[in-house]
């Protein structure tokens, strides 16, 4: 029974748990319940990845209706891999959030917080697993609404403006995606992604399809905060509760990157997007600018959360750069970095949240002397920071390594060099914080305050991520195997479909188009 329903369970488990968490009401109950559910979802997604790696693809027809008439859930190596990262981070963040939330969110809102977190998890899982373009939009709405709520829950009033800004931008993004899906439906008459892919290939030069592609790409770019559509991200990450920032920074934008990959590689096809529409160059240019502009912005901020937020936008640049190289190794670099960046940013934001818990502020000057007062937290921050820079033996190095290799494979020397120069910025912005923590003295005014290490409930999830940063930096077999089969799978389905169309298996579509042209003329 479990195996039969493996694909649908990671979505409906948190979906059903969310209203239950609201009914539970008491903070401690809803915390325990949410953590348990998220942990179960993690175990399920582990199974799902194992199944996807061995069997290739799992298809699940919701309601028993075969696709394209009903909604299909479709699990392959690509989305199972991202789902594993999302559920793992969610579980760790939930463990971490108990104390962090007690400090940063009003007590009356605690059960609402855990409900919103579960809704967000359900939405993200739904986006990842679904094989239906409109269903993806529905889950995008769930996760987005939950995200705005989570951001607005901080006790700092500035989070409200940040959440509002995020809401406006996010809604525009979602509307663009909806318009795009609508245009595709108008031209193809289907919403199932695979079916869409087959039928889109019949109308390569259609303006309607191309406009649909443009709307979807812009909408997804807003969601993943691709430069220059990233303006909502730094304030939202700065003013949200620390646990929320840790969760969103390592999952929400990654899921949006996955959506972009899915639309480019599965639905529209590489030839259409990169050859006919020439989007590769646009994406690559934006990615490079994002890496430089936002890495630079990160070096001049004084709030550590803002520093890390800008760093996130820069890292998104790396992700998009990888996929804009249009090769198996480039895509693989992106897939690995989705996973690795979740590990790094999760650990970093958790450490910053721990500092906020004790010090009550996250300005760089308040980090002075914390290396002695909070040794474990700052050690975690340092290791995760080294990982962002890309020091060997950390996951950051693995990511950069594959990205540079992918660039060199295509003789893109300049891109490879730019990636390495980008890392130098990371040295500066991480270095400033570490310098403050270890080489500056605790100010006199603070020495009387009782600043000590945070509780193990916050330290354990943080250190799990830090150890994962090192473990997957040394033993890369799991990440590279999953990422490699994911990207090979994405390329393979793409070429499979093209062959199918060439052989003329889907001729009925042609007939329809011809008829339609007759009518219009």
């Amino acid at each position: 029974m479990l195996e039969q329903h493996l694909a649908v369970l990671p979505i409906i488990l948190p979906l059903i748990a969310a209203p239950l968490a609201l009914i539970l009401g008491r903070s401690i109950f809803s915390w325990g319940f949410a953590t348990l559910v998220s942990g179960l979802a993690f175990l399920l997604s582990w199974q799902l990845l194992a199944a996807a790696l061995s069997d290739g693809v799992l298809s699940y027809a919701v309601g028993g209706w075969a696709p394209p008439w009903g909604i299909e859930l479709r699990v392959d190596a690509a989305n199972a891999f991202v789902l594993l990262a999302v559920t793992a981070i969610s579980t760790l963040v939930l463990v971490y959030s108990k104390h962090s939330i007690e400090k940063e969110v009003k007590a009356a809102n605690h059960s609402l917080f855990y409900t919103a977190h579960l809704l967000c998890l359900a939405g993200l899982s739904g986006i990842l697993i679904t094989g239906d373009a409109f269903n993806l939009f529905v889950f995008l709405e769930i996760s987005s609404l939950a995200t705005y709520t989570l951001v607005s829950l901080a006790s700092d009033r500035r989070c409200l403006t940040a959440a509002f800004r995020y809401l406006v931008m996010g809604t525009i993004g979602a509307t663009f995606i909806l318009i795009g899906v609508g245009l595709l439906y108008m031209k193809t008459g289907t919403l199932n992604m695979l079916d869409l892919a087959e039928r889109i290939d019949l109308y390569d030069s259609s303006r309607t399809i191309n406009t649909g592609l443009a709307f979807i790409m812009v909408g997804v770019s807003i969601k993943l905060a691709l430069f220059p559509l990233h303006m909502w991200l730094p304030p939202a990450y700065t003013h949200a509760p620390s646990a929320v920032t840790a969760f969103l920074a390592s999952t929400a934008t990654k899921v949006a990157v996955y959506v972009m990959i899915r639309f480019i590689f599965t639905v529209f096809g590489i030839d259409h997007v990169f050859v006919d529409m020439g989007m590769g160059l646009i994406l690559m240019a934006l990615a490079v600018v994002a890496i430089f502009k936002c890495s630079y912005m990160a070096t001049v901020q004084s709030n550590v959360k803002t520093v890390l937020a800008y760093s996130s936008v820069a890292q998104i640049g790396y992700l998009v750069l990888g996929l804009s190289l249009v090769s198996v190794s480039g895509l693989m670099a992106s897939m690995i970095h989705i996973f690795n960046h979740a590990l790094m940013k999760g650990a970093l934001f958790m450490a910053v949240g721990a500092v906020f818990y004790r010090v009550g502020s996250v300005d760089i000057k308040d980090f002075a002397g914390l290396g002695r007062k909070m040794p474990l937290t700052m050690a975690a921050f340092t290791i995760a920071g080294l990982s962002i820079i890309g020091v060997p033996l950390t996951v950051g190095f693995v990511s950069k390594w594959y990205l540079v290799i992918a660039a060199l494979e295509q003789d893109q020397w300049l891109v490879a060099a730019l990636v390495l120069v980008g890392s130098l910025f990371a040295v500066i912005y991480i270095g400033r914080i570490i310098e403050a923590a270890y080489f500056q003295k605790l100010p006199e005014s603070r020495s009387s305050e009782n600043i000590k290490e945070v509780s193990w409930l916050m330290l354990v999830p943080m250190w799990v991520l830090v150890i994962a940063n090192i473990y997957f930096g040394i033993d890369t077999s799991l990440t590279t195997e999953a990422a490699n089969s994911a990207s090979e799978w994405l390329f393979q389905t793409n070429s499979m479909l093209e062959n199918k169309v060439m052989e003329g298996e889907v001729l009925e579509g042609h007939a329809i188009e011809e008829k339609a042209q007759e009518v219009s003329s």
Partner: protein
Amino acid sequence: MAEFIDLVLLAMLALTALRIIFLKDLFAVVMLFGIYSFLSALIFLNLDAVDVAFTEASVGAGISTVLMLVTLAITGRKEKQSTHSSLLPLFVVLVTGAALIYGTLDMPPFGHPDNPVHQHVAPRYIEESPKEVGLPNMVTSVLASYRGFDTLGETVVVFSAVIGVLSLLGVRRKKKKDLESGLESHRVLHVVAKIIIPLVILFALYVQFHGDFGPGGGFQAGVIAAAAFILYALILGLPKAFAVVGPRFLQWMAAAGVLLYASVGLYSMYMGGHFLDYNQLATDPVAGQHYGIIIIELGVGVTVFAVMLNIFYAFGSQAERSNVQ
């Protein structure tokens, strides 16, 4: 003739939109939004999309207008002068509009039976759904059965909305009991409300259970029922409305609706089918579909009702507080 009507309606729609942009009085803007929704409902009606028209009228023109008006009670009526330059937004809007026009230039001929939309998945819905699902209203068959997972998602979206509103505003119970609230001295309104409210609730129930046969269903019914309670709260005051259905109870109801919907899915899994496979609910698949759709529509109705009313409570209690101060 139909084209002429469309053209007139679309022109009115454009005029309304333009007026909305330039008006500074937010109360008038809300009213125009209501008109805008009614015009869109008429266009949908002209396209023979009766279900969509009904939803647009009840949600767009009905409940959202009420919710926006309550918001105005908190925030004030006049739009503040914007300090931003509007050149960049104008540019973005122009580019988006141009892209949309460009995209529709070679769209399939409007309303033609040979269009992909009518040729690919739709024939199965039209030809088979009376046999497979057994409902005369195909729109309900598609929404509740073929794409029931989407509708579950939409119900959860509505649920997420109330989570957001509650976390921001919360529903405050008033402390001073003797405070004048509602429109208690208006005798005429009282009498009219007493006549209208039972009829509205009856109509909501009709819409709820008639969705299988004609336009209607949980979304519209929930909204209409919430409107009846909102009318009650407006005229008799929030405390009296709280005595009928309290905010805490509504929170439970909103959760219960989602759970009711999902439990149908879990039960069908327990019976050996896929999630939300209503065929498993009874020995006769068509009867099973019928049971499934009635229950999930009820879940949708309960959640939508509870969420809409609770959002009104949250705004309303905030507005009363700011009026007192």
